[in-house]
């Protein structure tokens, strides 16, 4: 698969998951042995990723995801996105706050043999916790 095709697959996954809340697309597009790495958290498999998406979409049902940047070379796709949503249900143990939350993330997606096999993700979680009023940074 070309870098262009990989990029199309990534765009499609983001659209289906965030805009249409279609989590079935995860099984379709991600490899069965897919691994998701995010610092400070245990690695996730495909099912774990799906549960993570479901938890986020349940808490922020009106979330709007914007791909700010996407580019690809060889077997890698790099993405920078922002997500805006109102915190309407419990999220990571935090009761619904009704607050508008913006999250920024950078991801690297790896493809192998025509399959989406590995992600490295880091998002501004501290910023999310600050916006939810759970964490205050020293001035």
């Amino acid at each position, binding site marked *: 698969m070309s870098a262009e095709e990989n990029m199309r697959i990534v765009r499609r996954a983001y659209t289906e998951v965030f805009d249409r809340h279609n989590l079935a697309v995860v099984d379709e597009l991600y490899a069965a042995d897919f691994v998701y790495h995010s*610092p400070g958290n245990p690695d996730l498999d495909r099912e774990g990723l799906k549960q993570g998406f479901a938890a986020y979409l349940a808490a922020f049902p009106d979330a709007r995801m914007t791909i700010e940047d996407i580019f690809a070379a060889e077997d*890698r796709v790099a993405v920078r996105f922002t997500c805006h949503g109102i915190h309407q249900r419990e999220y990571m143990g935090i009761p619904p706050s009704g607050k508008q939350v913006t999250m*920024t*993330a*950078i991801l*690297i997606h790896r493809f192998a043999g025509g399959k989406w096999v590995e992600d*490295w993700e880091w998002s*501004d979680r501290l910023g999310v916790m600050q916006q939810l009023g759970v964490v205050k940074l020293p001035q």
Partner: protein
Amino acid sequence: MVSEQKARDDVLRAFEIYNTKDMSVIGPWYDEILTPDCIYHNPGVRDLASGRESIKQFVGGLYKRIPNFHHNAPDDLIVQGDKVAVRYSVSRTDPASGNRQTSMILLIERYAGDKIAEIWELVGPWQDDA
């Protein structure tokens, strides 16, 4: 537009230069690879004024503040057109425990001509090395 080879070389060279921890080396390197009005976006570093000089001050502060700060070789390097993505990690000695710790970083750079005009960086938490 920057060549793929130059963009790659810049990343690898930058890491060597950072590890000198010497602002008399890092400063001129920034003059060489950053545009004067380069913007650095990092949600963990709010209120940083735009421009190369404030990036120098910020980085200089890291070397003063963080004991045994070290840039590890990139784990992943993606270059396409005027964009570069890097997955890498930095290490330090935790001042509280004395443990060696590592933080994972995802970085995107945008070139304008042959200099970097904009940087986005997300920095993971410090974690004890296994």
